[in-house]
């Protein structure tokens, strides 16, 4: 009971009356949009607010006399997958409530999640389509915009071929959007389709998939509560994945667990560690091998696990032997005693888990780092059990899903690759002929050749076409279609500017005009399409732990924005119309969208997911029907916090399921596979989410078996290793008789033979599961991955290293080719060696909690932007003192590849977070480019509140050989007082 003074103060009602006009009866949608968009209550309006109010009237408050609808969606920022509960009145999002029922976030959020409502306030969103006319943004209609774009795309296609259009998709897509976009590129006839995973965890996917089968987090955020030892290496989840820290810190407290942070920077995460190890940036492999040196030396390794489930560990031993404590300290700076302690904890205080993020992956040795991490887990037997595993925290809200659905230059959806088998499989799923797909490409060769990754798009614009020394495709990039992607997240921005300026067509489809829209000095042929956020859209998204969550539309798309689905549907139509005008036979829309239910000029998300369920067999994206996912969202409270399993009091339809049916969720939805909480877990029956390491790389190599020895999942009828299942293996075991007539007929229709992953009937999976057997086989994980440039990871100095004395001993890879482009290594490193003395400070970059990715969206959110108003560089007090730099003062930073005489200007944050000789910058800023303020180049009213220099104006050349991941974590720079 509160003491309200309302009775005694009837006079207050005068004031109430005065504000009635602002929002009597609550806002309706039309009034809200009018207020939010057109009049645009800016910050400058503050002075005009009556003295007694805290705020100008906006979307709130709720009208307590009217009904409120509660809608569940998922936060659109990081990959933790926090449920957002939105309160909606009259079509306006008026409030956010804690989503207590979600087993992932249990009501909580970080700064971004607690501020997502602002995204659909729309203060600074793109409100209608626009194009540049002589350098001025000019409003146009959707129809006119897509017609012009379709026309220009067909012009490029006619002159240069389909590979000259770069389709850049987004980890902000729903699963259905990502899948549709990949399919769109396939129907356009190119593999030049990519998204943010290239620059966050492409090396993780490559590294772990090459080790044990799947490129994903093996366990879950919740499962970390079971760990006794946690190493967080190359990650700062306290800022990047704050809600994950709820599980990490709870686990740390409940188990009195060891929380070890290995990082060059004393992060907010490190502040909560029981042990902090500061390393020199770029020396992860020596650290891991240094730990393994102690582990092998002291026999702390899990010998039985290695014998049964690991291939090639002896090759690792040979490499590890070189990394004596003295050598490790010489290279990394970490004393042997500390590393011995960490190694002992990790190997003996089990279960232990290794958590990593982009500190591991964004390196020229990214894939090798990930491989070394995985090998450490294998050597200590910390995979495939509760509380163990590679807990890889992905970045964006659906980067896992977008990766799974092949927004990637190397594969079709669900990691089928690009070979003829893959194309045949997906042609069958799509209901089109393989030949018709071939006809869409320049050639069958281009159809099976990996495309050009997003880290190098500008090289593909500017580099001469030459299959040996330059670009290996018919023509350069001429057009770029950017959906949901920032332009400041890729290194070497000065060169990106040159590339962007040369394009014939640049289309940015996004809720905000990203850096792409303003970075280059384009004056024509540049379009902005307003796309709605996932809060204005239905669809599923996959969290980092592989749980798939269904998100319901909170409000209708605001202003003139459209869903990704509708944008693609309209674009396909426009392309068809343009082709017709040119008398070209090429058509997209009819064939591509035929399987879907079309409503309001857009394919319905559920119908797209059903197609995914039919085709994405290899990753087990088949059991997650829209109905099951919606039931999970409805009954979130029935899932256990630690095991993520629906408890006994759950409705029968979900009882026993793991939350969000984490993939693989085998077979048809009707088979009721519960999903897989912990990958490769032999302690569970495959029907209960158990599994083995995947037999992906054959059955033997050089006479050594690659199959597991004496290890199998619980209840398996085969008690030893076995290869992946095909119709032939089924026949040999006599299990083919157990296929139903319908299944047999389906296999017959596809030619009589199929592997488990291409069997559209999913009969092979059903039958093998009945026998307790994993359809993908039961193999050893590979400590030696012979198909990679470094089969056993070796240390390689960063290209731009301050330790030039180590280059001779630990050089980077020689120059090579990949992804249709040259890939330079040693030639750049040799040049960099001479530049190093002029750039004595290591520059690393990373994340702030308030912002995400390129930051356009979050820097436009007034609740977030207020918290970080300036781009800054962290610099150690010693380096600052030597340069006469005060905390908070302006500094100039330049890098070895920046144009002569140019520098970036930002504030200094003098702190011991970074060690001497190391500087660190957040990567979310843009809008200033080498001291040019680009605010006036944004369409009016859409400029983000906060602008700043981009770290990637300073970053340099350097790519992982396997995925072309960019090097953002180790380069060199010089800093001086401004």
């Amino acid at each position: 009971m509160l003491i309200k003074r309302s009775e005694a103060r009837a006079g207050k009602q005068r004031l109430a009356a005065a504000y009635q006009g602002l929002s009597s009866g609550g806002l309706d949608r039309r009034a809200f949009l009018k207020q939010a968009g057109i009049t645009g209550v800016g910050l400058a309006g503050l002075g005009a607010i009556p003295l007694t109010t805290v705020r100008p009237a906006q979307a709130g408050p709720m009208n307590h006399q009217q009904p409120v609808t509660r809608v569940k969606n998922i936060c659109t920022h990081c990959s933790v997958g926090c449920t957002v509960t939105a309160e909606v009145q009259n079509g306006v999002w008026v409030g956010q409530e804690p989503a207590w029922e979600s087993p992932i976030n249990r009501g909580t959020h970080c700064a971004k999640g607690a501020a997502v409502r602002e995204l659909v306030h729309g203060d600074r969103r793109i409100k209608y389509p626009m194009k540049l006319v002589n350098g001025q943004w000019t409003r146009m209609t959707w129809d006119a915009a897509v017609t012009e774009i379709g026309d220009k795309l067909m012009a490029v296609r006619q002159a240069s071929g389909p590979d000259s259009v770069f389709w850049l998709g987004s980890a902000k897509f729903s699963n259905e959007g990502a899948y549709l976009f990949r399919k769109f590129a396939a129907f356009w006839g190119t593999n030049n389709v990519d998204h943010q995973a290239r620059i966050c965890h492409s090396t993780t996917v490559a590294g772990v998939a090459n080790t044990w089968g799947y490129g994903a987090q093996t366990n879950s955020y919740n499962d970390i509560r079971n760990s006794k030892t946690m190493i967080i290496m190359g990650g700062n989840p306290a800022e990047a994945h704050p809600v994950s820290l709820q599980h990490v810190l709870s686990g740390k407290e409940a188990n009195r667990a060891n929380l070890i942070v290995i990082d060059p920077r004393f992060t907010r995460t490190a502040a909560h560690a029981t042990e902090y190890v500061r390393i020199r940036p770029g020396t992860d492999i020596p650290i891991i091998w240094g730990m393994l040196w102690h582990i092998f030396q002291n026999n702390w390794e899990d010998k039985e696990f290695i014998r049964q489930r690991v291939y090639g560990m002896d090759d690792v031993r040979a490499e590890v032997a070189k990394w004596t404590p003295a050598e490790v300290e010489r290279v990394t700076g970490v004393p042997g005693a500390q590393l011995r302690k960490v190694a002992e904890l990790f190997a003996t205080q089990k279960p232990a888990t290794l958590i990593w993020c982009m500190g591991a992956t964004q390196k020229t040795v990214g894939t090798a780092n990930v491989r070394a991490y995985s090998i450490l887990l294998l050597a200590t037997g910390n995979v495939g059990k509760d509380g163990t595993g590679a807990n890889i925290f992905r970045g964006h809200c659906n980067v896992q899903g977008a990766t799974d659905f092949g927004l990637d230059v190397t594969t079709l959806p669900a990691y089928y690759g690009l070979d003829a088998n893959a194309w045949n499989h997906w042609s069958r799923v799509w209901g089109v002929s393989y030949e018709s797909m071939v006809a869409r490409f320049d050639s069958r060769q281009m159809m099976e050749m990996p495309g050009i990754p997003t880290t190098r798009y500008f090289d593909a614009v500017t580099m001469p076409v030459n299959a040996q020394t330059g670009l290996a495709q018919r023509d350069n990039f001429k057009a770029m279609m950017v959906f949901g992607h920032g332009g400041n997240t890729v290194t070497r921005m000065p060169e990106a500017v040159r590339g962007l300026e040369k394009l014939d067509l640049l289309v940015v489809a996004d809720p905000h005009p990203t850096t792409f829209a303003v970075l280059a000095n384009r004056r024509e042929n540049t379009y902005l399409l307003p796309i709605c956020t996932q809060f204005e859209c239905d669809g599923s998204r996959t969290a980092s732990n592989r749980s798939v969550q269904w998100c319901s539309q909170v409000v209708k798309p605001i202003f003139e924005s459209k869903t990704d689905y509708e944008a693609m549907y309209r674009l396909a139509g426009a392309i068809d119309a343009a082709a017709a005008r040119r008398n070209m036979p090429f058509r997209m829309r009819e064939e591509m969208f035929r399987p879907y239910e079309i409503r309001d000029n857009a394919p319905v998300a559920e119908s797209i997911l059903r197609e995914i369920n039919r085709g994405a067999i290899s990753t087990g994206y088949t059991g997650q029907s829209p109905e099951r996912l919606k039931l999970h969202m409805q009954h979130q409270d029935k899932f256990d916090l630690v095991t993520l399993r629906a408890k006994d009091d759950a409705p029968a339809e979900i009882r026993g399921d793991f939350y969000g049916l984490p993939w693989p969720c085998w077979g048809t939805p009707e088979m009721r596979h519960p999903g897989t909480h912990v990958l490769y877990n032999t302690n569970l029956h495959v029907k209960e989410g158990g599994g083995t390491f995947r037999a992906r790389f054959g059955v033997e190599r050089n006479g050594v078996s690659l199959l597991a020895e004496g290890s199998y999942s619980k209840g398996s009828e085969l008690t030893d290793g076995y290869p992946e299942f095909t119709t032939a293996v089924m026949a040999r075991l006599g299990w083919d008789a157990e296929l139903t007539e319908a299944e047999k007929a389906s296999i017959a229709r596809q030619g009589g033979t199929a592997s488990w992953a291409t069997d559209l009937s999913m009969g092979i999976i059903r039958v093998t599961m009945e026998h307790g057997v994993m359809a993908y086989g039961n193999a050893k994980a590979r400590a030696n991955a012979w198909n990679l440039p470094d089969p056993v990871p070796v240390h390689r100095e960063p290209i731009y290293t301050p330790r030039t004395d180590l280059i001779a001993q630990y050089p980077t890879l020689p120059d090579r080719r990949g992804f249709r482009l040259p890939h330079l290594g040693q030639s750049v490193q040799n040049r960099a060696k001479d530049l190093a003395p002029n750039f004595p400070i290591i520059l690393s970059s990373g994340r702030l909690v308030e912002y995400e990715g390129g930051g356009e969206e979050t820097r436009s959110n007034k609740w977030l932007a207020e918290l970080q108003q300036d781009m800054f560089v962290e610099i150690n007090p010693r380096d600052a003192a030597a340069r006469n730099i005060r905390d908070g003062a302006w500094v100039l930073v330049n890098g070895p590849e920046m144009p002569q005489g140019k520098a970036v200007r930002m504030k200094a944050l003098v702190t011991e977070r970074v060690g001497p000789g190391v500087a660190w910058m957040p990567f979310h800023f843009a809008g200033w480019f080498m001291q040019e303020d680009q605010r006036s180049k944004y369409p009016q009213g859409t400029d983000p509140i906060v602008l700043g220099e981009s770290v990637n104006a300073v970053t340099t050349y350097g790519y992982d050989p396997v995925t072309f991941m960019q090097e953002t974590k180790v380069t060199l720079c010089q800093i001086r007082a401004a």
Partner: protein
Amino acid sequence: MRALILALALILAAPMAGQAQTAPQVSGTPTSPTPMMPPVADELEVLKALQGGRVAGRITIPDQQAASLIQPQGRSWRDFHNVTLAWVGGIAVLGMLAILVVFRMSKGRIPVEGGLAGRTIQRFNGLERANHWMVASTFIILAISGLNLTFGRHVLLPIVGPEAFTAISQWGKYAHNFLAFPFTLGIVLMLLLWVKDNIPNGRDIKWFAAGGGLVGHGHPDSERFNGGQKGIFWITTLGGATVAVTGYMLVFPFMFTDIAGMQLSHIIHSIVSVLMIAVMLAHIYIGSIGMEGASDAMTTGQVDLNWAKQHHNLWVEKEMAKGRGAEPPASARAAGAD
């Protein structure tokens, strides 16, 4: 002051920092602080380590006041405001009123010795008088609105009720903030106009020894301003300057200083103000009803010659010598003599 916050943070961190600074010289090679148990940042321990100082840290928003986490000094300021200031102000103001009442009762009005001469002498010119009244009027409003902030809630609020009291106080605040500028201007002008006549000298000591003529017989010699008036002058100018400077600190919050500076500014401002108010009460009394002939100086500017001779004999002599002697009363002037 930001430096101070940082300094405090550094003091707090000193035991840990020593460990972290043993840096090897190779660029980029890390230091490895290895706390076995993470140091505990217990509030009580931190406050103890700071010996009651402010707990401050780093914050990302630009408002650096927000970087101060706990400032125990708030409690001291509260004690000052609610206890010390109330007592000092109450005693000073009420005490002075009491003294004046007693003085009046015992001594009565101070007459002009020998009665009015009927002839006057120009004591203050128009500029001096205008400036005086600018300072005086603003001072009175500043004083009342200022006293209201300290005593109003006890005195006025129960009488007029909360809404009216807020209205009064709000207007009082506006008046206080804006009249600070003419007040300051007046103080500066006052200093320029009168400083040359207000240089203290030996005669002032004798004047004070004679109690301004109230002790013993005869009136002590005095130039244009006697010791008491010089005292008022210096209290007004120096005190005025002090309240002005501290007042501007308060009007422009945190523009020049941090929370400690703001608190100190307020303390100085309020103490000096209440003391000035007490002194000015006496000044007002003497200049008006307390002394025969005194008010003319600041009204017409023409004082009676006898009053002048009694209180400022040396000044009168000097003025006479300069030939700017006493004029007959205005009524005695020939018509059209101007």
